[in-house]
């Protein structure tokens, strides 16, 4: 096993994703904000499953809970589950074409939204609206670009 290198840069990218999660945007765009933190966690789980997996996903999910204001643990659980699915199947997912990956990412994002909705529904009794699924669509569209960007980031900084 190669020694870990550039772990700090991974955390830096996760921090940037968390910032994007809370950065103020015009009201009209708020429903369309993709789940940046989850997308970045998914990328790192895919690229370096030994460095980033459920533990990191849990911590980032917990931070998302703190930042976004959902009941603590809701995002942590959903992040962990999604990271688990990616971590178990990372070899298969890596071999997919980017478009197929994007579709799969869409499915996983939908799973994430569903988990968060279910848990919030049990805990605080929220009602479902189809508009809550916009981040899934936007996340799918964002994935190819994010994948490309983060791969360059990883190769340039020789993170492994």
């Amino acid at each position, binding site marked *: 096993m190669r020694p870990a290198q550039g772990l700090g840069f991974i955390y830096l990218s996760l921090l940037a994703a968390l910032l994007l999660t809370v*950065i103020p945007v015009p009201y009209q765009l708020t429903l369309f*904000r993709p789940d940046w933190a989850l997308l970045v966690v998914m990328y790192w789980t895919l690229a370096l499953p*030994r460095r980033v997996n459920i533990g990191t996903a849990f911590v980032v999910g917990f931070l998302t809970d703190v930042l976004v204001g*959902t009941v603590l643990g809701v995002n942590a659980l959903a992040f962990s589950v999604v990271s688990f699915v990616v971590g178990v199947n990372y070899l298969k997912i890596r071999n997919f074409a980017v478009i197929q990956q994007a579709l799969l990412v869409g499915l996983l994002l939908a799973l994430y939204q569903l988990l968060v909705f279910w848990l919030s529904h049990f805990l605080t009794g929220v009602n479902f609206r189809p508009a809550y699924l916009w981040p899934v669509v936007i996340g799918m569209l964002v994935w190819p670009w994010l994948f490309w960007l983060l791969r360059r980031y990883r190769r340039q900084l020789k993170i492994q």
Partner: protein
Amino acid sequence: MNDFFARGPALGLRLVLAVACSIGLMFVDRYTDSATQVRSYLTSAVSPLFYAASLPESLISSASEQLMSQQQLLTENSALRERLLQQDAQLQLLNFLQQENNKLRALLGSAPVVEGQRLIAEVLAVYSHPFAHQVVLNKGSNDGVNVHQPLIDDKGVVGQIVSVGPSSSRALLISDNTHAISLRAERTGIRTIAEGIGQWDQLRVIHLPLSTDIREGDRLLTSGLDGRFPEGYPVAEVTRVFKDDSQPFMNVMARPYAKLDRIRHVLILLPGNQLTVEPPAEEPL
């Protein structure tokens, strides 16, 4: 491949651990009281992140202020002056009315309404998450902010503070799913409760029997019965009344006066120095 599992427990076990931890967290956060304190610590721990996140926006807005032409500034200035003058004129009357009101209350033998201080706070972040309508404010316990203090803007009630850090605090908006507020209809004086349903522009007015006199356009004010919000602040206007004879209660919707989706500045109502009257016990509805 084998070394994948060499470090730490297997993936499945990790998942079980993470899920167990999350469920524990959810339980503690939702069903115990210790969570408020923990939340306050967490709020203060992540507040630098909020300051960093709001940096670009504040830079842009200050830059646009810098670039405003003198003409624009002059127009704005004169408009503001005019508004100030009008409001001052209204305030004179208000002061008189308030004194009269206090005298009348004294005659009736009831305690005068104590006006507390107000604190202007800027919104650092608005949560976009549909399941959590909260804002982070740039005032904290150092400025005298405390949990449960109400928040208003220039139009109406916005929400209440739920956790406080030293230099920032977090407020729950009236449109949040977990928020409910005790109200009184201005026209008829009916007491009711409005709960948030997770939409910026709608509240649900609950537990109104079919025979209640309520119409579209009725103004709903805070009743002060919840012991959190002072009496008489405007909250929402009834937008839809739907009567279904098969249901025990009416289906009534209201639109908040406060522009919850685009708040930039809010007023935190600090309690007055004098002793306030103990709010009456919550009546069963």
